Every structure is written in C-alpha cells, then in structure tokens.
C-alpha cells in the first residue's frame, strides 16, 4: 500500500511538471503579455512599459524565463500575479478552499443521490419506478450545467426567495453573526451551487449505477447467496451492491475532472469566489503565472481524486491487493 501510494505520488509530481510546462508554452504562444492592459493606455510612455517588462523579467529569452519558473516551482514558489500584485500561491490559496468545498459538496450530492437511485433502478429494473427515474435522470443529464444553475437561481433563489444566489457568504452580516449563524450563512450560500453541480453528476452516477447493479444481479455469486437462503436485504446490500459499487468507484475518479470543470461554470453563474473565476480572469489578462498555477492546482486535485479512487478500490476489492 505505502509503495503504491509512493509510486502514485511520484507520477503526480511528473504530471504537475508536465502540466506546468504545457501551460507555460500555450499561454506564451497566445498574443499579448501581462503588461499589455497597463501599457496600451495612451498615457503610459514606452520607456515605462519597457521598464515594467524588465522588472518582471519578461524581456528575457523564453527559455530562460521557463528555466527560472520551473526552478522556482521546484521550491514551491508559484510566481507573481501581475493583476493581483501578490504571489500566485497566496491568490490561489485564498480561492482553493471555496472550490474544494463546492466540488466536494457536489460530489457528495452526486454520489449520495445518484448511487442509491441507480441501485434501486437496477434492483427493480423494468418497474414503473425504474422508468420514471430513467426519464428524470436523463433530463438532468442532458441539461447544460450553467442553464440549470440559472434556472435554480431564478426558481429557488429569486422566485421563492429562500436561498441566496451569489457569493459564498453574506458580505454585510456574516462577520457579525454568532458561529452557528455563520455556519448557516455558508451552508445557505453553498446549497444552490452545490445542488446545481450535484444534480448533473447525480444523473450520471444513477445511469451508471443502474447498469452496474443490473450486471451484479446476474452474477453467479448472487445466485449462490440466494441459494443459501439469505434474506433479500442481505443479498442486496452485502452481495449485490458491494459488487455493483466497484465500477462506480472507478467512475468516481473519472468524473472528478468533469465536476471540477463544471465547478468553474457554476462558480461563474453563482459568483462563487473560487478558483474558477480566477482562471477565467487570469487567462483574459494574460496573468501568466496565475494561469499556470491554477492549472497545476487543478491537475493536482484531479490526480488526488484519482488516487483517492484507487485507494477506495483497493479497500473495496481484495483482488487488487497483493495476495497474502
């Protein structure tokens, strides 16, 4: 196990450097540079502009800039944000918890809703419940995430007016609330974006869990379990669902990047102060190192999500462990 995790971590580091290099190349191929918005204003004299480029090291050969960046990266330094006038690490660190919160909440809703629904469908395949749920999950599955977000915003937020529709906290009252009030404030703000993200994921999980359960029901060992005279409840939970969860764990690793990119859209719709908006803004302003930094963090999250899925799989399926 330890060896396995060590190998995966080494792979993760390699991936991070690959992503960093690739993003570095791509963002430098794109026209413009971080000083453009500043220096294109007619009032900025050319020598000021040149001075700025020198200060930021943007006048150095690209290869040298790259070498310096990678060198700094190896020491954990993510570079400087031209737009935020501070370290990229600090800028990202401020946003990452929000994105993580949203993504984890989305995953939990997707998993917690999708898996039981899909399992029920598979167990009662062909029933009326199954058909109704199939139509419902296909409906959510086919919705664009931002559209669903806007609809929920309009319906549940503005329409009924029970839930806030933007931001992560109430900027006016949050700090003056007692701790329980602050928790509720966060939760209320989280609810709509997390549901938006979770519903689409839940539909995908349900579709998948349904067919995994259908497969599991037909397994020989389920017949063995029934032949032993076990109760249907035991056959379902102990034998069928355990087997049916294995493929879903793999899916969990695979959907993590999809949910993460979904989070970027949801963050935009709900003005959620996460990494998503930082990504969008930094690309627009050619804030080179923020672009690369957010790419690195996203890649790390995806790698970690997959690692988590592998560990879960390892726990759930003894066949993947080295034999005793």
């Amino acid at each position, binding site marked *: 196990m330890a060896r396995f995790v060590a190998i995966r971590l080494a792979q993760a580091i390699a991936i991070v450097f690959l992503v960093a290099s690739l993003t570095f190349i791509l963002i430098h191929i794109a026209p413009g540079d971080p000083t453009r918005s500043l220096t294109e204003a007619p009032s900025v004299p050319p020598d000021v502009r040149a001075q700025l480029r020198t200060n930021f090291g943007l006048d150095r050969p690209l290869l040298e800039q790259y070498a310096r960046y990678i060198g700094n990266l190896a020491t954990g330094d993510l570079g400087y944000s031209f737009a935020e006038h501070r370290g990229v690490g600090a800028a990202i660190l401020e946003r990452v918890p929000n994105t993580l919160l949203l993504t984890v909440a989305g995953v939990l809703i997707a998993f917690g809703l999708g898996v039981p629904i899909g399992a029920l469908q598979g167990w009662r395949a062909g029933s009326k419940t199954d058909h109704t749920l199939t139509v419902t999950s296909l409906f959510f599955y086919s919705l664009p995430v931002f559209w669903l977000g806007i609809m929920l915003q309009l319906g549940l937020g503005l329409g009924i007016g029970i839930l806030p529709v933007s931001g992560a906290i109430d900027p006016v009252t949050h700090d003056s609330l007692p701790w329980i009030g602050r928790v509720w404030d966060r939760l209320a703000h989280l609810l709509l974006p997390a549901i938006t993200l979770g519903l689409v994921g839940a539909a995908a999980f349900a579709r998948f869990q349904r067919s995994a359960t259908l497969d599991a029901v037909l*397994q*020989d*060992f389920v*017949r*063995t*379990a*029934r*032949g*032993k*005279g*076990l*109760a*249907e409840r*035991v056959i379902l939970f*102990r*034998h069928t669902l*355990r*087997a049916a969860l*294995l493929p879903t764990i793999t899916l969990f690793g695979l959907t993590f990047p999809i949910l993460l990119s979904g989070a970027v859209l949801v963050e935009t719709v709900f003005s959620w102060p996460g990494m998503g908006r930082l990504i969008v803004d930094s690309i627009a302003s050619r804030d080179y190192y923020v672009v690369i930094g957010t790419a690195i963090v996203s890649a790390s999250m995806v790698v970690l999500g997959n690692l988590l899925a592998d560990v879960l799989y390892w726990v*759930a*399926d*003894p*066949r993947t462990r080295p*034999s*005793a």
Partner: protein
Amino acid sequence: MTPLLDVRDLTVEFDTADGHALAVDRVSFHIAAGETLGIVGESGCGKTVTALSILRLLDDEAVTSPSSAIVFDGTDIRRLDGEALRAVRGAKIAMVFQEPGTSLNPVLTIGSQITEALHAHRTIDTGAARARAIALLDLVGIPDAASRFTAYPHQLSGGMQQRVMIAMALSCEPQLLIADEPTTALDVTIQAQILELLQALKGRLGMAMLLITHDLGVVAGSADRVAVMYGGQIVEQAATRELFRNPQHPYTRALLDAIPRLDVVTPRLPAIAGAVPPATAWPAGCRFHPRCSQVLDRCSTDVPPTFVLAPSHFSRCWLADTSPGSRDG
C-alpha cells in the same frame, strides 16, 4: 415409502429473442433419502434449468408450468412463500455450482461466506459459527483451515474453491445436495478428488444427492440411479448398473461410447455426431432423431412415449416398443 424429493411434470419455458424456448419438458424423477440420482446429458439439455427449478433460483423470465410439482419432504416447494422458501434453501436443500470461481463472492472472505449461511438458518454466535466454519473447511480437506478462514476466493485454486463451495453447502447439514457439474471446470486429477470427497461426505452425513454431469463416467461410481436427459426431456432412466449393462436408448449408448476409457487406446474420443439444437427449435418427433444412428421412419414424425422396460427402467425410444408390428412402420 414417499421419496424425499418428487419432481413431477416439471416444464420450464423461456421467451427469448429467438422465440419460445422449451428448456425442460415434463421431467419427472424422484430421489429417496440418502440416495444419489445422476442426471446426465450434453450441454444444453436442460440439466441446470432442472436443478435451479428445485430451489426456485431461475430468473424471473423463466415460466414454470402450473402443472409442475416439486414435492420435498411432503411440501410442494412451488407453493412456498418467501420466508418458508428461505428456510428450505441452504438448510434442507443446498447447491454446488459448476463454476466455483464465479459462484463465490470475490470481495468477501470464504469464512464469512460460510458463516453467513449458518447465521441465516441457526441461532449461533459469532465464535461458534467461526469454529464450525473452520471445522467444515477441515472436513472438505482444506489444509490449514483456520488460517484459510480469512482468505479471499481468488487466493485459492479452482479445486480449493470448489471445496469451499461444498463446505458452504454442507454447513447446515442439508438432506439433499444438488451438485451441478461440480467438477466440469476443474482439472482431471482434481475432478476425481472432488468426486471422492462428495461420495465420502454423502456416506458420512447420510444426505441424498442429485449429481448432474455431462459425463456418464462421473456417475458410474457415485450414483444409485441415472436419468439421461436430452432436449429437455428424460430419455432413459434406470439403476446405474442396469443402465451401464443394458442401455436402451441410442443416446445413452452414444454417451457410453463417449466415456474416456483407460483400457482401450483410442486416437480420439468418439463424440456424438452433430450438436444439441437450441431449446427454441427441437426437432419434430423424437428430438434425438437427426443425430440417431438407429433412426426409424416414424422417429421424425411420431413423438415416442416413455416405455417401461422393467419396474424401474424407462426409455423414450421407439426401439423399446415391443408391441406387435411396431418395427414395420
């Protein structure tokens, strides 16, 4: 004396994409307490469907004819509801399947798969269940049983897995053990060991056994009586000695010829020409007639009835018809 298991007119049909499949057609047999009945036939003859019917383990799409009766120990299993059916499964009738590799749950330890059967039928605490499971593993010849308790199925060989299946089936001391091709998936040397084990355990525990196989050689040493199945029907039934000495149905004779023999050097096994047709397309008349070496004119049109040759020897073949003039047509 009433038999332990009395199967009467068992008929099972499936609706498939290729049409209506008559997998089992009015099959009747009985097994006395402590007796072993062998069911022999090539693949696709309806043996597994027959076996699964007894414990009602067939999928929902299988339709069992309402006139079928499966009377076990005086009660018709077909009429049992959920709880009463569960009390029979595993406790009074237990089953061993063809593929031990897929019939054991890969994510549960073999120990827990044995103890869960015990817990399902008995009030027994965890420690006692564990002790009994280890004793059972020991009984079926698994070396170092106590340490194997926590092993997972994939850590065992096919033969050992089948021993675990047998231990599991025996856990509640059933009166009847159904073994559906228990050795087919195993190596030849292991096959003999498993058969010996079943035979020894049967004698020791006094249970009855339904031994299903496609190889007449397998039942030769184990079964008291043999039912030969072809095309979803029993085509010949007799005491084992009688069947081997005096086979009546050409299909039985063909199966006898196909037994691998050690005393005769044959370049290859004499397989029966042709193949079992799908259950959706049984031939008219006698179902075996297109492959039969002794086919008569009437075989392709007239369905042979079951002829009684001796009090317990039946054959479903026109050759057994001794009525006057029967050989003319």
